[in-house]
């Protein structure tokens, strides 16, 4: 949990992010006794109705090297802006089924406000700035490209 080392790290995980991984990540922070609040955002794949059918999964691809550089840049900027103890970002690559978790953003700080505001800003920046693409797989075997709003 030495979050202060500030070297680029991999944010990508293959397939869905399991609730057990999230629990383990939370448990890993119990030794950091200066933390008073954790803020977590989880993105979950929705069964949206599209013209060609209903979404059953999203297949994520990324320009990985660029995404990791960008994630590192965002991470540094957020650490500089908010008094955080820890920050973790995990994004799925490959197929994530409807109802499964594809994004896990986790910030911790002494007082709640910093963790909450940082988490919020991280999620917005991840969605806007990381070169990641979601291909929504339909039950008709067709697909549509996800559009972030």
């Amino acid at each position, binding site marked *: 949990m030495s979050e202060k080392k500030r070297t680029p790290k991999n944010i990508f995980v293959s397939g869905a992010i399991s609730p057990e991984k999230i629990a383990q990540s939370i448990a890993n922070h119990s030794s950091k006794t200066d933390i008073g609040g954790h803020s977590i955002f989880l993105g979950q794949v929705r069964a949206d109705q599209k013209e060609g059918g209903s979404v059953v999964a999203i297949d994520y691809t990324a320009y990985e090297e660029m995404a990791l550089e960008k994630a590192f840049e965002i991470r540094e900027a957020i650490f500089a802006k908010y008094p955080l103890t820890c920050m973790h970002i995990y994004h799925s690559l490959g197929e994530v089924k409807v109802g499964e978790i594809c994004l896990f953003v986790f910030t911790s700080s002494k007082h709640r406000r910093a963790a909450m505001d940082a988490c919020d800003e991280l999620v917005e920046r991840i969605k806007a700035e990381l*070169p990641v693409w979601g291909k929504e797989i339909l039950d008709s075997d067709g697909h549509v490209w996800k*559009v972030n709003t």
Partner: protein
Amino acid sequence: MYNKINIKAFGMIAEKLGNTALEWDACEDTDGLRKELEARFPDLKEMKYSIAINKTLIVGNVRLPEQAEVALLPPFSGG
């Protein structure tokens, strides 16, 4: 002298190009590259995409440095 350049394509753009990697005659700048790509793949004209050179998004028209890593990026949709 101009060499070949390697272009990476992603998401919907890769789908239109039929490939995630493309060898291409090197162009002087990104406007030239766009023009040539759109001549060969007319569908691209109707698509929104950005260009990254060496993993940095470029704005406007930018000269293509030698051995640049050029990437064609449709709108991001992570998360």
